[in-house]
């Protein structure tokens, strides 16, 4: 029987995809690409744009009409794996948000004070099922993207194209940079969780076009305004790019706080998404799974706030491992899972 709380429209699905895939990844994109591919980073961004489109089109076709909760009902072990993985990913993004807010916006505040409203909001947003989540994401879509586009447009005025252009091409570097970027865009795997619940069609061409423009825009704006060396040296080059962009006429000399405030809402979408999809698996598969999942997710993260915050630099230094693990498990595992489900359905 169809669950009406799990149905979303095509537009909602497309907006969820853009917010979840772009928001968090874009914050790390320039430095991650340059770390792997210093000489021709722009080519890696272009290639990964195509790879992303191919992956999501495959996912869109395979998962069409097969909701994830039905797949997990027949593979209960997968629901547990997903729950644990998504809890770890959510913990990473949660700590990142607390760190960024503490550093740029609300210094001298305890992690708990910043983390508590985040968790309450995430719980409130997620408790109504995919339908409510889809509605909220649809509502905040331009709220997150317009400031980003605005800052990108302001930064265009004085970019150094010499820094963006290909200066040296090596296949090994190109492959490494592309792989790292593909791993960074791992939240695209979340498409498997809502594609089966989308009515009136799958992913639109303009969604891929839009996300590609945004990814290239971020790379060009940051590398073109800071240069490659500083992009690699800086801890938050995207924020540094925003510090350099100003509204002409002295109306607003700095736009970084403005950008951080809105971008954090975007990262929040990814963080709440991981909690949502992890819990949904448990909810549909296990008795009292919803209660246990919620307690461990929201309560667990709240209790772990200070520990996570304390070990933030250790977590941050393991960022590459986090990415590669997500690349291998995140992108290939659902393909395998849905393939098994298709075989099971054919046998029936």
């Amino acid at each position: 029987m169809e669950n009406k709380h799990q149905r979303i429209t095509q537009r909602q699905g497309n907006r969820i995809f853009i917010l979840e895939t772009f928001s968090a990844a874009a914050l790390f994109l320039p430095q991650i690409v340059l770390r792997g591919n210093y000489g021709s980073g722009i080519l890696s961004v272009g290639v990964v744009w195509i790879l992303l489109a191919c992956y999501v089109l495959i996912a869109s076709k395979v998962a069409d009409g097969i909701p994830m909760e039905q797949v997990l009902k027949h593979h209960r072990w997968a629901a547990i794996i997903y729950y644990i993985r998504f809890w770890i990913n959510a913990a990473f993004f949660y700590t990142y948000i607390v760190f960024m807010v503490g550093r740029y916006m609300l210094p001298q505040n305890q992690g708990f004070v910043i983390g508590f409203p985040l968790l309450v909001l995430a719980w409130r947003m997620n408790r109504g099922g995919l339908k409510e989540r889809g509605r909220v994401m649809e509502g905040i879509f331009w709220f997150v993207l317009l400031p980003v586009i605005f800052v990108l447009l302001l930064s265009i005025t004085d970019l150094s194209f010499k820094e963006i252009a290909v200066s040296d091409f090596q296949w090994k570097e190109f492959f490494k940079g592309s792989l790292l970027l593909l791993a960074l865009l791992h939240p695209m795997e979340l498409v498997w969780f809502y594609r089966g619940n989308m009515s009136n069609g799958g992913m639109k061409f303009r969604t891929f076009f839009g996300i590609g423009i945004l990814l290239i825009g971020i790379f060009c704006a940051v590398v073109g305004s800071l240069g490659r060396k500083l992009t690699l040296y800086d801890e938050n080059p995207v924020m540094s790019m925003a510090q350099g962009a100003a509204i002409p006429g002295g109306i607003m000399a700095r736009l970084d706080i403005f950008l951080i405030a809105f971008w954090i809402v975007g990262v929040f979408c990814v963080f709440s998404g991981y909690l949502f999809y992890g819990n949904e698996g448990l909810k549909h598969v296990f008795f009292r799974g919803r209660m246990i999942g919620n307690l461990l997710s929201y309560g667990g993260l709240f209790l772990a706030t200070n520990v996570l915050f304390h070990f933030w630099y250790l977590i941050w230094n393991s960022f590459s491992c986090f990415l590669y693990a997500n690349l291998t498990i995140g992108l290939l595992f659902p393909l395998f899972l849905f393939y098994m489900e298709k075989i099971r359905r054919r046998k029936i």
Partner: protein
Amino acid sequence: MKKRYIVCGLFFLIVVLSGCNHKRDIEDSSYVLAMGFEKINDRRYLVRYSYADFDSEKSNAGIKIPSRSITFLADSFANANKIWDDHESKQLNFGHLKVVVFGNGKKDKKIIKELLLHPQIAKSVYILKTKNSLAEVFGKEQKLAVSFGEYMSAAIENSGKIKDPKKYTLGRIMY
């Protein structure tokens, strides 16, 4: 639909209310608008902070705020801030910093690295060097109606000799 508006409203409130955190008057912070560093030996720097002097503000509209300076000896930028915190009750704020001037005719790499990693310092801050001493450069400050930082940044931006002022900013220092 009503729930959607409530959640969107909460997001908006979180964003706009973030500025209401510090219940502190503007006069309780020291807004550094210009800084100077002059290496005097292998380890020590003469550090000069030029900050907004709200007591001397004459326009009553907050548009022309002069500045005054303090100079001290420090090992690094971080050490200079620590010395400030130990002796001054007002909290330092670098969010409005315009110019950093290096004496001895040389930009110091160690200090620049510290400036690059400071979260409050914008990448649009001008980094300049001079062969003169800091005392000579900042000597003009007392005669200015506006702060030394604003005066210097306006001078760079309006100078006919400098074609691309952005070249001298912190964000372009590694080009």
